[in-house]
């Protein structure tokens, strides 16, 4: 039997000797918030792939030597980003600020690294020790004991090989589903914006729908934009979609077959639109000409006719004057320790990121596919984790991050966002029987026979179907005791 998995003796030392193997995906860099880092990578690639990337890595090198693991996943996400042609930007995204650690932190960290002697400890734990030791001077003396104790406990808490972590993860996420609310709308943080929450949202994430039922963005601002309300307002105006009816009264003149647009001064000012700008937008509509007459815009048709007049009136009403497609409404709020943040109903990540003053490192959307398109698969994975976790914890349900990570990793393992279900992960399984047992039984069987597929019976469902022990947990161990001594064979 072909065993693709290298069987390694999993003693503690061996694992450690390999040096910290870093995470599931390519260049994930520890310490920093994942979102930030991933975005950084994606962005920097889009601009100047090599140079920027180095910068990021060197910046983080200081914290910890980063083990680089290149995987084929990279090719997929890289390709995606590279083939996209960036329109010329009017500005460059700001460089990331790496926060220098205080000196004493560094010293404690160095001390810990010396004490752990090449034994692996998760960075979060080291960080935890550093922080606590820095806060309480007395602990520094006891550092050796703490590190040793942590190493001991860490080794004890490792997961067992052959554990069916997938099933446990699926159950851990599925089981609390019964306790969740069905209520679709709820207010999240911002009372003014409706967001799908609870079970429907969780199903939406797992389904990898092409667009969420309530798209939403948290747009963070940079530097002076986030402290100055006027600048924030200006950005909000650039983002929120403004239609002609929002800023002007449109009147049809049936006698002269013209349309007059009377801008509402107050709202125009509020939205920061000059009348010429409005005129320009109106003129962009085909088959009409427009000019300004006494603060109103007169529209005359190239080919007069009542029917056309009606149609033009409708198009003008919905004419976009300003803003970004898809963003229906924005709300500016002042957050403590942050300044002004824009929350939007509707989402368009690509265009929002192109607006100057928007912080591209922290701005997020709940549209996972948009993130995968703009920032790459790693960012999408992190967003799945973030969204699923937020949905669950909002309901007061406590689910370990590792389970959610596993689901996110399964969904994004091949470089695209795949749904959990027959159109995604389950439909692409290699086993015929497993697919047939899940959904659309007959078609899978017919197709398999036409293709001459063979089922190697590696998975769970297949082995249950043929009535064999499953290759997980205790079933994965092939250990047989010979109960008879060879002598007594003849008996």
């Amino acid at each position, binding site marked *: 039997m072909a065993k693709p*998995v290298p069987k390694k003796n999993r003693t503690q030392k061996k694992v450690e000797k390999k040096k910290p193997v870093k995470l599931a995906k390519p260049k994930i860099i520890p310490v920093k918030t994942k979102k930030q880092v991933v975005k950084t990578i994606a962005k920097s690639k889009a601009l100047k792939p090599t140079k920027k990337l180095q910068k990021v890595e060197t910046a983080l090198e200081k914290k910890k030597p980063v083990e680089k693991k290149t995987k084929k996943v990279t090719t997929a996400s890289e390709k995606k980003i590279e083939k996209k042609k960036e329109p010329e930007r009017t500005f460059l995204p700001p460089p990331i600020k790496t926060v220098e650690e205080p000196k004493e932190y560094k010293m404690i960290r160095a001390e810990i690294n010396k004490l752990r002697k090449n034994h692996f400890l998760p960075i979060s734990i080291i960080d935890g020790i550093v922080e606590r030791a820095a806060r309480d001077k007395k602990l520094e003396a006891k550092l050796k004991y703490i590190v040793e104790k942590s190493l001991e406990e860490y080794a004890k808490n490792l997961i067992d090989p052959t554990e069916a972590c997938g099933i446990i993860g699926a*159950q851990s996420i599925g089981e609390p589903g019964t306790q969740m609310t069905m209520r679709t709308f709820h207010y999240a943080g911002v009372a*003014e914006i409706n967001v799908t929450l609870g079970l429907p949202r969780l*199903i939406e994430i797992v389904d990898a729908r092409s667009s969420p039922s309530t798209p939403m963005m948290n747009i963070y601002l940079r530097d002076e934009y986030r402290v100055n309300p006027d600048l924030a307002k200006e950005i909000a105006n650039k983002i929120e979609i403004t239609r002609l009816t929002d800023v002007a009264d449109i009147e049809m003149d049936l006698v002269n077959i013209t349309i007059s647009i009377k801008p509402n001064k107050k709202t125009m000012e509020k939205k920061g639109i000059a009348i010429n700008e409005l005129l320009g937008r109106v003129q962009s509509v085909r088959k009409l000409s427009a000019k300004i007459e006494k603060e109103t815009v007169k529209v005359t048709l190239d080919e007069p006719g009542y029917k056309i007049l009606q149609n033009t009136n409708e198009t003008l009403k919905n004419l976009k004057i300003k803003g970004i497609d898809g963003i229906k409404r924005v709300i500016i709020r002042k957050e403590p320790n942050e300044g002004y943040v824009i929350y939007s109903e509707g989402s368009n990540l690509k265009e929002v990121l192109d607006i100057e003053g928007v912080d591209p490192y922290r701005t997020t959307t709940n549209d996972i596919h948009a993130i995968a398109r703009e920032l790459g698969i790693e960012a999408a994975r992190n967003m799945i984790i973030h969204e699923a976790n937020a949905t669950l914890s909002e309901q007061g349900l406590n689910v370990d991050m*590792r389970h959610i990570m596993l689901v996110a990793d399964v969904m994004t393992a091949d470089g695209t966002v795949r749904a959990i279900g027959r159109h995604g992960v389950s439909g692409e399984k290699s086993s015929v029987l497993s697919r047939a047992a899940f959904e659309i039984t007959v078609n899978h069987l017919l197709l398999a026979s036409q293709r001459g597929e063979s089922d190697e*019976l590696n998975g769970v469902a297949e082995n249950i179907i043929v009535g064999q022990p499953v290759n997980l947990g205790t079933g994965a161990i092939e250990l047989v005791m010979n109960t008879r001594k060879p002598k007594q064979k003849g008996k």
Partner: protein
Amino acid sequence: MAGRNITKKIGALKFSVLSPTEIRKMSATKVITADTYDDDGFPITMGLMDQRLSVIEPGLRCKTCGLKVGKDKCPGHFGHIDLAMPVIHVGFVKTIRNSLRATCRKCGRILLSDKELEEYRKTIIKNSSEGRDNAYMFKMIISSATKTDACPRCGAISGKIDLDKPTSFRENGKKLTPTEIREWLEKIPDEDLPLLDINVHSARPEWMVLTVLPVPPVTVRPSVTLETGERSEDDLTHKLVDVIRINQRLQENRDAGAPQLIVEDLWELLQYHVTTYLDNQTSGIPPARHRSGRPLKTLAQRLKGKEGRFRSNLSGKRVNFSARTVISPDPNLSINEIGVPAEIARELTIPVRVTTQNLEWCKNLIKQTAQGEKPGDNYRPHVNYVKRYREGVEQRMKVTEKNSDDISEKLELGFIIERQLMDGDIALFNRQPSLHRMSMMAHRVKVMPNRSFRFNLSVCPPYNADFDGDEMNLHVLQGEEAKAEAEILMKVQENLMSPRFGGIIIGGLHDHISGCFLLTYQDKTFSKEKTSEILATFKYKGKFPEIHEENGESVVYGKDIFSVLLPKNLNIEYKAKACFHCEVCKAAECPNGAYVIVKNGKLKQGIVDENSIGAFKGRIVERIIRDHGTTAGRMFIDDVTRLGIAVVTVIGFTTSIDDEDIPTEAKRQIEEGLQKAQNKINTLVAAYEHGELESLPGRSLEETLEMEIMRVTGRARDMAGEIASKYLGLNNSAVIMAKSGARGSMLNLSQMCGCVGQQAVRGERISRGYKYRTLPHFKKGDLGASAKGFVANSYKSGLNPTEYFFHSMGGREGLVDTAVRTSRSGYMQRRLVNALEDLKVESDGTVRHTGGEIIQFRYGEDGVDPTRSTAGKAVDLDRIIYDVKQEE
């Protein structure tokens, strides 16, 4: 078991399309008669029930292999029907269509140049070697070949192929007969097939046009004999009868040279019957029906769906040695145990091999069978069967009262006795829906009188069980490996920690928590006698807790009684559930006694409540499990629950309607507050009506008004609750339960004695019903509180009719919600499990698909088991540092 030592392992299953030659080769007989049995009830030769296609009556022998149905297991043999004219196989219509469109009608080659073909071939080979999906490539080949007008090789003009669903094809509007299609498909050379997604070794396109139809063995479609002696045939047999009948007529007509029209009609009819035989839910044609009007269940229907072969029989299997009955609670059992009714224990057996060590014991057991049962006797296990193997043949003897002595004498080494269940046996206990692994845990059997399964109340949360009529299943393990595995991995005590969040899911509940609260609240004391009474309930054997002299009486502090259960080296500090969440926590100096300190296994201060011993939250339980192992944890839970109940029994604890009594003063205050809220709503409504209300950004006026009113009503209810709770102290049982986390919340209480509050449907005030109003009791357009579902009364004071109605509306929404939710979340979980079931942690720490594909390089980024983690953290740093500080 003995005699069956060789276990064969299935390496792989290969799928392929049956060729006509293969169908004929495997056929036991040609089937030509549409009838099944003759007048004597004997199967007709070359009929559908031919005895060469295996037999179904027990005792009869199959004419092909000579084996019987029962023990010998004749596997059944296929027959075949030679179709007079070829017909299309519905399942392959799409492949046929694509093949026709993509190939030349004259030379059979794909309508692309050699260069293009070579390129596609290369990419496909490359893709499949990299494990990528080729679906897109095939689509490309077919669409580009379809667009080609003339064959690049022979120059033949290709026509437009249309498919009239479900099974007929047209070329440039002219019908293509299956014969023509078959001839066309035959021309496609083998080397082009891989480009059409057909594997040459398993299929040929022309096989998708049927010329021979396999007839499944009789065992697949058994006929049932009704009591009246009438035979009722299987749906498949019915369908096959139709096929043969039409096939015969078609043949006769064609041979007789009947007009083309008639032959074509019959051909079409044959196509219909073969189509419905394969799939009776093909869209575009009416399903074939039974005489009664019920649609027939043909081949595809047998496999499909939840009740189909795959999900119902292959993925789920039925078992022996299982039992199901109603459950009921028994606080005297350990959490590891399960009470099994004697009636069930007598039925379920465990195989025991007779060895030199247990020969006498086994003989005794068999002898006991003779003694029978007398009412009032203690349960003693008997033996139901004795098995032995002679030359690999199993012999099974039933042990009865009469022959038991006899059998007992004859008992030899190597025999296997099937002994009845007895105390200490291990069995799996399960409640559906089995949403997580704790839905099936191993328990130690305790045989008991009466007829329900009984278990400790603390085990309810993992099973999500209650005792309102729930039933549960018991499975008795038969093999030694199974028993050992269940003991090590599945016992209740091994599942105290949940893999979902790294905390306990089994702990004290309800009265256990109330009891411990009363025991440790303030400086509760007990007399020596009461103390002994309490300690005796869990058979305490250690030192008697410290006795103090107070007011001339010797008393024992409740905290000392509780400390008796704690391990001597336990040091822990945390906030109790009863914590007031003060702005600045005074920690050790907490005036409410809500800060728990345990030092060296002694409860120094603090209240023991849900946060100490409760399921999901109990810190002490969790710590004991982590430090002292699962056995200690199990014993602690057993004891602490008994302690809680004992305390509650000794002190006395009850709740009744007078727990919700509040003084008139409080009532007045609440009424006043509600009146204020009422006024505020009226002003809001008035402001709205006069157009003075200012709308929130991005909201309409109506929405703003609703939001404001909702806020006011919400606050009104909170106010009522606050006033009520001010007058309800900790001498109130209901408050004790709410504060300690035993049951209920302060919200429940305030709804009972203060004000029920706003009723909502879909998160909004109730708005639907009559035109412009909710009920005819109100004025049209009334936006006031009571007209939109605000319940100002409390449950105790009673709701007025309109309030009651609104309350029911809210309640109904909840019910509908639950009903919808269970099905939706069930499906989500099924999909999740299906997508993730094949993942496992490998020896090198990576997470891989069983196929070998890597999903994570290190499980959960740190390789830590969530079950062992402390609320998700790999290492419990706080604890390590606390311990360090303690040492000083």
